[in-house]
């Protein structure tokens, strides 16, 4: 139902089955959204840079303290601060989605052909890459400058980073769909990130935390992230799988909730 028949699908193979064709169209739209959002993200890199530089400085400063205080102090300070500052990056996701409401562009996207899931994936894909890069840079820095042992199997580490980034993205998306303003998001993500990652043992090793804290640590995604990351760095696949499963489950539930909210008239004051 358009005014002319311009060659809209010139890259699509002739005779492609309808289902394949629909998938290719969806991939094209997701690509368009991801490209657009990557451009916006690259034009405003300040927050991300600070989430990389701050933990680097802290790792360097805190390393002597950790090395004296606990066994494997270098691993603790590198992975702990990496987990903590990756949780802070939740605000990047939340702000990115919430801005669509502030700018009133979400409605413009919703009247396009892209479905809610496509919009969410296209929106968060560049942020996923940003988070993977952030965590990778911090771990490499940990190996080069802090004395984190070089992981025997980097693939495990990469998988752990991707799973953690996925869970963070989903949590960030969920937050964006329940808060009412950037200020509210800022409070929840900053206080939440500090609390959850500290409680999870990112700042102080669990072994020297009070008993109540050790018991409640399990409710924190930071705890599972740290367990997974430290197991992956050791090359312990069996040890990384249970926390990875927990994080995947958290990510799937949060992501499904966010997608449902976004599809059902988010920001319009009523379900659609």
């Amino acid at each position, binding site marked *: *139902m358009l005014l002319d028949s311009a060659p*809209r699908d010139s890259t699509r193979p002739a005779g492609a089955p309808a289902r394949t064709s629909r998938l290719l169209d969806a991939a094209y739209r997701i690509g368009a959204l991801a490209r657009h959002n990557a451009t916006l993200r690259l034009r405003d890199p300040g927050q991300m840079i600070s989430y990389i530089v701050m933990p680097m400085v802290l790792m360097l400063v805190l390393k002597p303290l950790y090395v004296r205080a606990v066994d494997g102090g270098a691993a603790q300070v590198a992975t702990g601060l990496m987990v903590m500052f990756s949780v802070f990056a939740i605000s990047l996701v939340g702000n990115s989605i919430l801005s669509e409401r502030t700018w*009133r562009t979400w409605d413009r996207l919703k009247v*396009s052909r892209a479905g809610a899931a496509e919009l969410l994936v296209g929106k968060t894909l560049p942020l996923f890459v940003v988070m993977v890069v952030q965590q990778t840079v911090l771990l490499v820095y940990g190996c080069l400058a802090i004395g984190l042992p070089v992981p025997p199997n980097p693939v495990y580490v990469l998988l752990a980073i991707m799973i953690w980034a996925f869970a963070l993205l989903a949590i960030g998306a969920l937050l964006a769909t329940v808060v009412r303003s950037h200020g509210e998001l800022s409070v929840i993500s900053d206080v939440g990130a500090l609390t959850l990652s500290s409680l999870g043992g990112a700042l102080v090793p669990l072994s020297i935390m009070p008993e109540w804290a050790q018991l409640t640590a399990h409710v924190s995604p930071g705890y599972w992230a740290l367990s997974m990351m430290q197991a992956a760095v050791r090359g312990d696949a069996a040890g990384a799988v249970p926390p990875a499963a927990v994080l995947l489950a958290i990510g799937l539930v949060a992501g499904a909730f966010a997608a449902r909210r976004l599809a059902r008239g988010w920001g319009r004051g009523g379900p659609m």
Partner: protein
Amino acid sequence: MLVATDLVKRYGTIQALDGFSLNVAAGEIVGLVGHNGAGKSTFVEIVSYLIRPDGGHVTIDGRPPSATRGEVGVAPQHIALYPSATVREHLELYGRLAGLRRAALREAVEDLSTVLRLGGIMDRRAGKLSGGQQRRTQAASALVHRPALLLLDEPTAGADLETRQAMLDVVKQRAGEGAAVVYTTHYLPELTELQATIAVARGGRVIARGTGEELLKDLPGEVRVTLADREEVSVSTSEPTVTLIDLLRRIDRPISAVDVRNPSLDDLYRSLAVHDAP
């Protein structure tokens, strides 16, 4: 092209639409007028599939709005742009989301850059544009995929003359090519220039529809005669010429001025929609 019948929409205690019906044929421009709260924007949101009606139904080219997502061109009343994205990036994003690729996308972007006079600002970020330039960018984003149904919700609100003229030109062009257009506005002279069919909304429904001529037919004009001693005789009439002749026959004092004012769309607007004023 667009058939909306008996639409009902309620927000809590507010009845936004109350039996709103409107048909728009291919190639037709319907100017939807009415005070704020008359239901214009709610109607646009229902046709865009942003909200669902509580009652009534809509079809676009015989299909429900859920089946035509992405095929309708929508320019909302408020500015909805990414401040740090350029005009070109906006057009490319919405073009790609509509399925435009490579040469077709380039061609569509260049075409709109010309007709909406965006040439000099294509690589400028939306946050740095003037209000009129933002309006044109928003309209271009709605038009880039050449939709057969256009919903333009106050596209010239707060716009400068250049923007207004560019907007009217492109709407006339697209309607000439067969697009059905719903154009909501408070600037009634625009509808005269667009030669639009006018639909007047009040209290969540369309209460009158027709060409400007048809709607003005029964509306009184005004004949005003100013006498030499500055006294004024003013008569409201549906036949200004006959009334003027009659007045001139009856007045036996020197006359300094005569003013005959035919009813305008503004009079129509006031007479039909005045009760909705907030």
